[in-house]
């Protein structure tokens, strides 16, 4: 009998812990909401803010490359509109389209344009996705600061280094004036949008070298560390990762046919860093634009926040007029 009692006691203990955790959570949430509300009213004293009482949920999902921009935009948006919840998922461009083509999310972030089959799927489900460019990313080809023989590469030389069919394993195989050392490659994993882009533009869908001397990783910081320490290593990733590690990495000028160009704010924005600069997108569900909170978010996104976010994380914002014209085109649908 005593055993039974103890068992019942334990079971209710587990239940109580569960319930407490649940209640504790929501209590604190209310408290913190109140706090932010208070701050909000304080901040807006004297200012008229028609969005202060917005509520609802704006769902965003997609590319991990676009994630940092959107993290900035949602964070700043929620500071001004604490009633709106903005869950943002980082699941890759394809993962985002999987959700947006079913109409499950409002914003689908992508580091590549939507594919034909994804577009067809969206149409089948009666969903219209409006393409919006947020910023540019320059795919940067980098070597270590200690590397003293590379300054620039042509697209052909890039293919010599990365394509498996060229069969080069030593730097001297490509150019006799380069050292007789093994080429060490650091590349983003095959699932990333960055690799997709490199695959399309540089490799032209032919297989990249694999095996010895080649490291693939989804963790860009690991690529950075690998390249930093090895004068014979080469790799590529988004411009933001180069900017964050400028003092230990050397970025190469790429010759796409019109002379070597290094990626920089200007060359990426004006398109001279070609063909390795790419636009970053978000696709807006046209149906969602009927919701006031999504309208407010779109206004916020394209009147400054996207540019600030891009700047903060090391991407390159569009010229101001381009944000403006995109916003006007969108506003025509709801204003």
């Amino acid at each position, binding site marked *: *009998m005593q*055993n*039974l009692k*103890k*068992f019942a006691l*334990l079971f209710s203990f*587990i*239940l109580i*812990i*569960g*319930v407490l*955790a*649940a209640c504790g*959570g*929501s209590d*604190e*949430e209310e408290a*913190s*909401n109140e706090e932010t509300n208070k701050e909000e009213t304080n901040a807006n004293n004297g200012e008229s803010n028609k969005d202060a009482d917005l509520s609802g*949920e704006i*769902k965003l*999902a997609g590319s*991990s490359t676009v*994630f*940092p921009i*959107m*993290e*900035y935009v*949602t*964070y700043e948006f*929620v500071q001004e509109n604490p009633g709106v*919840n*903005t*869950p*943002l*998922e*980082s*699941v890759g461009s394809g993962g985002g389209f999987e959700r947006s083509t079913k109409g*499950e999310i409002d914003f689908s972030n992508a580091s590549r344009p939507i594919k034909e089959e994804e577009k067809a799927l969206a149409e089948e489900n009666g969903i219209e996705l409006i393409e919006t460019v947020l910023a540019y990313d320059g795919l940067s080809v980098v070597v270590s600061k200690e590397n003293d023989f590379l300054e620039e590469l042509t697209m052909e030389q890039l293919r010599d280094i990365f394509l498996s069919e060229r069969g080069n394993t030593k730097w001297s195989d490509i150019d006799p004036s380069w050292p007789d050392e093994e080429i060490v490659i650091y590349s983003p994993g095959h699932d990333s949008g960055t690799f997709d882009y490199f695959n399309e533009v540089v490799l032209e869908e032919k297989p990249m070298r694999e095996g010895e001397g080649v490291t693939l990783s*989804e*963790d*860009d*910081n690991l690529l950075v560390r690998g390249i930093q320490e090895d004068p014979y290593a080469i790799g590529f990733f*988004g411009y*933001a*990762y180069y*900017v*964050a*590690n400028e003092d230990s990495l050397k970025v190469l000028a790429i010759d796409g046919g019109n002379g070597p160009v290094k990626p920089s704010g200007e060359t990426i924005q004006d398109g001279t860093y070609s063909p390795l600069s790419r636009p970053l997108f978000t696709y807006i569900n046209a149906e969602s634009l009927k919701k006031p909170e999504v309208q407010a978010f779109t206004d916020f996104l394209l009147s400054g926040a996207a540019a600030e*976010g891009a700047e*903060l*994380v*090391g991407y390159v914002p569009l010229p101001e007029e381009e944000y403006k014209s995109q916003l006007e085109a969108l506003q025509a649908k709801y204003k």
Partner: protein
Amino acid sequence: MALQTGEKSTKRMKNRIRKNKLFHTLFFGATALSLVILAMLFYRIISQGAGNLSWDFIKNFPAPYPDRAGIYAGLVGSLLLIAIVAVVSITIGVATAIYLEEYAKKNKLTSFIQSNIQNLAGVPSIVFGLLGLTFFVYILNFDFSLLSGGLTMSLLVLPIIVVAAQEAIRSVPNDLKEASYGMGATKWQTVLRVVIPAALPGMITGSILALSRAIGETAPLLVVGAATAIYALPDSIFGSYTAMPIQIYSWISKPGDEWPVVAATGIIILLIVLLIMNTIAALIRNKFQRRN
């Protein structure tokens, strides 16, 4: 002749002692190695992240700025998930174990189920994520919610709990059960008053270890739609949420020198939560073991 064997046996003896010493050092080395690795991990994480640890870090939502980023959303999300997992998986897991050990006939079907449960315990977690996506998110229409995440995690740890609970039940001495039957108790009475109390410490240990695994999992949660950045707590079990490992992963993969520090601080919080859970498990277990 006699002398010779004497010499031989001392030689053999020496040889044995040497072997004994060799294996002693070998096993000690193996233990030391894992301890050293653990110590290195702790040292690295704590030296990197402890400086950043503050009340603000616990109370703040994620942020695009390293000095303002906090783990609050992840911490609460993880605790809520664990609460759901605990209620669902322990109830179902223990019930399954009792059925399999005490009620099920020992036939081919039972052993088939048995081996499948053991196989399930080794299935990669992402597979459970896909199952959760199909079943909870789409078929049961729970959407990408806390509930879907919790139930998916429950499936993930269920096999571990079943196996642990079965082991615990099996270790209950048969004399106890037979004594109970001998007193005229029914099967149900025996299970409830003899088997379960005796097996409780083992069940609790297994369950807490399983929950500790759930609190560190990321992959299935990403599939069933946990957010990476969110600035509000879930308003109900159907709300959006995030969890600690997702936050930590997101911080680690960001460019910049400050983010690994934020990630290390997040790992410290995760370790503290794990430590608290394991301590609770140890306390409960000791309490029940002493009674038995």
